[in-house]
């Protein structure tokens, strides 16, 4: 889902960059103030961990392998959508500049798709579903799935606006593919949350409802 350079015209790419920068500024403010202490270094190290998590081959039912995004997991565990934004911004910067995975001019769009959508849908999806059904792991599963699925839909819409990929095939292709991958993202988010709740419950910002 990392959009490469040239697939979004310059003008539109700049608009996504502006949106991304607003959320990055908010995420920086979160890292400075909202955690009890200023914990920017901690989140920076965690971002390196998420980078490693994305390297893990994840089985997809029909035999190929996929990769996790991890924004929802970071947002749920650290208790703020901005955790997802912060972590994914760092990861995408490194991926774009060092590896060439995801373009430079379109990085704003990629940050919006994966960091902002991943973080916000992941965190608010999790809290909302947990309040309704009461099961934290089912909530993490649904939030993980939705974060990926909605990111993919937004990615499809952006490519359609850019005129580089028609809307309907993009929605079907990207949407359907990520609807399935999303199940795995959700499953792993729930599994990882279970392990974290068992091993280090103190890490969790909102441990209520999560029981080992």
């Amino acid at each position: 889902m990392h959009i490469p350079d040239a697939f979004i015209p310059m003008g539109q790419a700049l608009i996504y960059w502006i949106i991304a920068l607003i959320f990055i500024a908010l995420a920086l403010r979160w890292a400075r103030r909202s955690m009890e202490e200023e914990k920017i270094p901690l989140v920076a190290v965690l971002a390196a961990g998420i980078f490693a998590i994305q390297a893990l081959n994840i089985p997809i039912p029909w035999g190929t392998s996929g990769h996790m995004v991890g924004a929802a997991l970071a947002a749920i565990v650290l208790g703020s959508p901005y955790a997802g934004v912060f972590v994914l911004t760092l990861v995408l910067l490194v991926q774009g500049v060092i590896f060439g995975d995801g373009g430079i001019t379109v990085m704003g769009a990629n940050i919006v798709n994966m960091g902002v959508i991943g973080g916000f849908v992941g965190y608010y999806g999790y809290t909302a579903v947990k309040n309704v059904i009461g099961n934290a792991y089912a909530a993490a599963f649904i939030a993980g799935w939705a974060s990926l699925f909605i990111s993919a839909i937004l990615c499809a819409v952006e490519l359609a606006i850019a005129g580089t990929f028609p809307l309907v095939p993009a929605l079907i292709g990207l949407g359907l593919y990520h609807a399935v991958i999303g199940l795995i993202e959700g499953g792993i988010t729930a599994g990882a949350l279970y392990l974290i709740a068992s091993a280090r419950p103190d890490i969790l910002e909102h441990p209520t409802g999560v029981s080992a």
Partner: protein
Amino acid sequence: MIDDLYAIEKYAYRESLVHRLDARIKLLVALAAIVAIVALPYSTKVYELGAVLFALFIALWATSRLPPTAYLRRLVLILPFGIFLIGFQVFVKNPYYDIFHTIATLPFGIEVYAESVQFASILLVKFVVSVSFIILLSSTTKMQEMIEAAGRLGLPREFTLTLGMMVRYIFVFADMFGRIRTAMETRCFDPLDRTLPYRYRLHQVGYTVGTIFIRSYEQGERTYTSMLCRGYGANAGLYIGKKPLRAGEVVFFAATLAFIVLSTVLIYLHP
């Protein structure tokens, strides 16, 4: 991707004219080339600018004395998603052309359009040129130097500090990731092994992800505490010393930038 981390950084530690060039200049030249090729509207003029910029890339890559295979290997790793998007183009109409001519009809009513093939090739040129400059940048510039350069160019210290730490720990976690993978292999566990129940594999991968998360969080806690012990506070930042540019570097930068800007403008204005 994580397996290439060491290879990329090893190339960046080599010696050559391009490697010695100040990272600020390499960062800005790569950015200028990418912005130029992306900003040029979708038209056949992209071929001309693409050829010019690719020639610049080849000249710089040759000067860096890195093997061509290093470039090709990295290119192949990056291409898939872009190639998927480009390959699909030939079957659909896009808003950048008014009239479409069918050049081939496939079963199920799928048609290939001449204009779409042209559009796909334009995208391919833009894509390959942008990716090539990123490969050049990261193969000739150490990560830490790149961050310092970004700081010297005005990136706020919150970012230089966090990126600096992240880059340092990426290598720690790449090692950890390698050990986890070895541990899985010694136990004959492969997440992609289809003879194992799917649910079981997903559980194991989930726990591994949780483990990496906890371990990186704990590493973060330790690092943070030790930084506090050494006087870390809200005003702390990455130390970036002053590094004046040499006259030769300024001349090279001015000439390259002028070359990129002029060729873009001339090709854009040329009827």
